[in-house]
């Protein structure tokens, strides 16, 4: 049986990669303004993955990550997740606040800083996406969780799980440390994952005028 997510065409995956490029590009610009220095951005793989590969992709189900989760509502629905390894999250907070220290535990203030960074990133991503598609989009109040990647990601996969055993993770990497390093520890990185609900894909392709290609 055909599965619209698993069997998505290369052409449509390229369209989603462009969505990621535009959204995450705007998010990187917003973060760069906040940090007062360049922030690099890299669009990663956009392809259908079985659920268990999704958790492997973020370093394994037990990998400790900080995640800011927002639910997208409006013309399309979906989830947006800003995911950082726990240590990278700490480094980013120190860069925003100018505080030093190496503590692994995030203080209450560090948590609200991270939540606000996630809020800015998802907001600017969605602004670009809505300019690009003409969609009216809103996000729920973002929520932060620091825990095992599997426990967090599986929550984000739930809507997709009703229709498919595969998810398309529209992934862009945000590199506040820069590829060459410019202040904050080099290699500090976070991922912005856009996980549209299954019904959203056809709407995205329709809005961009590419729905006549293949199965959409």
């Amino acid at each position, binding site marked *: 049986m055909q599965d619209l997510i698993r069997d998505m065409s290369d052409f449509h995956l390229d369209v989603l990669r462009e969505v990621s490029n535009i959204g995450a590009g705007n998010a990187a610009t917003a973060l760069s303004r906040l940090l007062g220095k360049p922030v690099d951005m890299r669009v990663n793989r956009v392809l259908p993955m079985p659920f268990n590969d999704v958790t492997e992709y973020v370093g394994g189900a037990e990998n400790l990550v900080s995640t800011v989760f927002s639910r997208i509502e409006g013309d399309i629905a979906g989830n947006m997740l800003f995911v950082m390894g726990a240590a990278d999250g700490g480094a980013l907070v120190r860069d925003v606040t100018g505080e030093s220290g190496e503590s692994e535990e995030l203080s209450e203030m560090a948590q609200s800083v991270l939540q606000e960074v996630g809020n800015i990133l998802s907001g600017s991503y969605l602004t670009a996406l809505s300019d690009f598609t003409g969609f009216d989009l809103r996000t729920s109040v973002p929520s932060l969780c620091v825990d095992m990647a599997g*426990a967090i990601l599986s929550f984000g996969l739930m809507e997709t799980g009703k229709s498919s*055993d595969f998810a398309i993770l529209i992934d862009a990497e945000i590199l506040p440390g820069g590829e060459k390093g410019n202040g904050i520890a080099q290699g500090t990185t976070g991922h912005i994952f856009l996980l549209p609900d299954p019904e959203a894909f056809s709407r995205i392709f329709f809005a961009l005028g590419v729905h006549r290609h293949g199965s959409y």
Partner: protein
Amino acid sequence: MAVIKVGIADSNIAKAPDSICTLGLGSCVGVTLFDDARKIVGMVHVMLPSTELARSSTYKKAKFADSGVPELVDMLVQAGASRMRLKAKMAGGARMFSFEDSAKGIGQRNTEACKDILRKLGIPIVAEDTGGSHGRTIEAFPDTGVLEVRTVSKPVIRI
């Protein structure tokens, strides 16, 4: 002594001296069914409460509580376990994020659905570690009948 891994929306069984585990349960629920006499255990990693939520005609049974648990019972019986001796231990069903949305309380709904189907199947729940707001990794040992629950910030518990 192997450790058998169960992925999201998947199930499997283990016989002593092997053990079986699933990693990073959040709002998902891990249901384990033990036959202590035969030293055999089955585990299912349930993602959603009911097949009524399925929007496709084909799906993995292990994904839903109401199809995954009965399937696991059948697998165990086929592997030599006695349906009458089965007892359940379960963990997971957390609320990972505090916001309100359409997926509100899915962890709790998963837990309740698992209890529901176990009651219908007449399988007693002898231990559980459910709810809260943290992820869990669980490992079941058929030779001792113990279910080990590991979290990021709390000590390991054995139920």
